[in-house]
């Protein structure tokens, strides 16, 4: 169910930062990650995100058992092994989006970029006592996590914008920690529409080892004709997808906001439920950068991508393009 909430989402950070902060154990984020795999739970999770002046709310049901997790909304997504991911659009059949055989490299240490501190006390979320973990970058607070005081399961995660208001949040509306229910079962069959394969050796110039703001490459994959470079800074992840072609305005996914990207090129940015994305085109390539990072970090990173060398198409592709070029003026 999707509910469009027209009121602006204004949970100001200043209301939450009065309590004294102490250095959290270095593994606070690791504890939360581990708890989401180890703690058996069932719950209803609200996901909120801003899109222009409106805030959207999607209510999901979540079930976690023994490292497996099923999340049900408009889509249904399933994590089975530590690596395998399945997705069913609507009520359709399952697609394998990520195979168990492909594993990204280790993520960089978040402490090189962020300060992770535990704030004394925390609100009650879904009827459970929490502890608060704050993630800051210099003087800017990026996120606050509210972890279950008993298990470290993440019960709420709030991401802040540049003005200190919450721009994205997910919070349990209700949760039950109950180990007696059965673990999610693997579907009897799944399609393999575009399973990614790891790319080794030399890759595209648009997949450098590092991007600005501390993003390091943790994997490069190919799926169909699309190259996918995955980056991480230890907290957020950023994907750069590269495919051949030229972007026409009519091919954009919707009426986005124009932004300057690498080399003075104009890109178009869009919010999605988990973050922000940018689409642009250069030198016969279409690039799409998708991230759960704050918008300013995403733009910094994509602006640091190196320029592409001029395209050198084959004679056959030149012939094909020439025919199209001759036809287009007639349109």
């Amino acid at each position, binding site marked *: 169910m999707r509910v469009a909430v027209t009121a602006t989402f204004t949970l100001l950070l200043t209301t939450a930062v009065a309590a004294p902060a102490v250095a959290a154990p270095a593994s606070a984020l690791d504890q939360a990650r581990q708890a989401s795999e180890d703690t058996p739970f069932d719950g209803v999770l609200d996901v909120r995100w801003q899109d222009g002046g409106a805030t959207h709310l999607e209510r999901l049901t979540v079930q976690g058992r023994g490292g497996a997790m099923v999340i049900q*909304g408009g889509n249904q997504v399933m994590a089975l092994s530590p690596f395998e991911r399945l997705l069913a659009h609507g009520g359709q059949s399952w697609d394998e989006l990520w195979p168990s055989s492909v594993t990204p490299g280790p993520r960089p240490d978040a402490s090189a970029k962020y300060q992770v501190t535990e704030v004394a006390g925390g609100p009650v979320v879904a009827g459970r006592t929490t502890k608060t973990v704050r993630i800051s970058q210099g003087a800017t607070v990026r996120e606050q996590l509210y972890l279950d005081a008993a298990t470290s399961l993440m019960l709420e995660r709030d991401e802040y914008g540049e003005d200190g208001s919450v721009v994205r949040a997910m919070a349990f509306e209700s949760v039950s920690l109950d180990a007696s229910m059965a673990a999610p079962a693997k579907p009897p069959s799944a399609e393999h529409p575009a399973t990614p394969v790891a790319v080794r050796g030399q890759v595209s110039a648009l997949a450098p080892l590092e991007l600005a703001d501390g993003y390091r490459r943790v994997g490069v994959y190919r799926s169909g004709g699309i190259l996918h470079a995955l980056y991480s800074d230890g907290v957020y992840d950023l994907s750069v997808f590269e495919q051949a072609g030229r972007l026409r305005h009519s091919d954009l996914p919707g009426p986005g906001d124009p932004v300057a990207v690498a080399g003075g090129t104009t890109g178009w940015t869009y919010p999605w439920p988990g973050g922000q994305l940018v689409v642009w085109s250069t030198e016969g390539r279409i690039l799409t950068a998708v991230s759960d990072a704050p918008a300013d970090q995403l733009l910094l990173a994509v602006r640091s991508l190196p320029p592409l060398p001029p395209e050198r198409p084959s004679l056959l592709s030149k012939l094909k393009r020439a025919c199209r070029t001759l036809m287009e003026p007639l349109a």
Partner: protein
Amino acid sequence: MTEPRRFGDSPFGGGMHLGDALSGLLDGELAPSQQDAARAHLVGCPTCAEELRAVGQARDWVRALPPVEPPFGFYERAMREGRRGAFATGPSLRRRAGLAALGAAAAAVTVLGVGSPRPNPASPAVPRLVEAHATSASVGADLLSKLAPVAVPVSFGR
């Protein structure tokens, strides 16, 4: 090495090589006797054999071109121009033939790489890319917060 057979006495006329007959051979437009003569010539003539291969490749390339829908209004414009006498004979036809030759020359220049034709348009499947990002990011990271947004169908208001 066998000397190529002369074609001076062949059914194709007085040339040293097959020339335009290659295209006829590929398209099956030669008479049986001409086909036999052409094939016999190809056995001993590497120049014609190479030209046959090149002509065949060019034909394959053209056949591999995707079908192109005429632009919106193309037929209407053509019919309108036709009624105005655009397809009349005489000086107008010669002028149009000249323009066609000029266009063909421009296309050839473009194809040969002097120009830089624009790449083919493509439409990125953004919702699928978002799903690919979120699922890859969830591997080895916090499952719940990375994966939950994938359960929300992505749309961008178009």
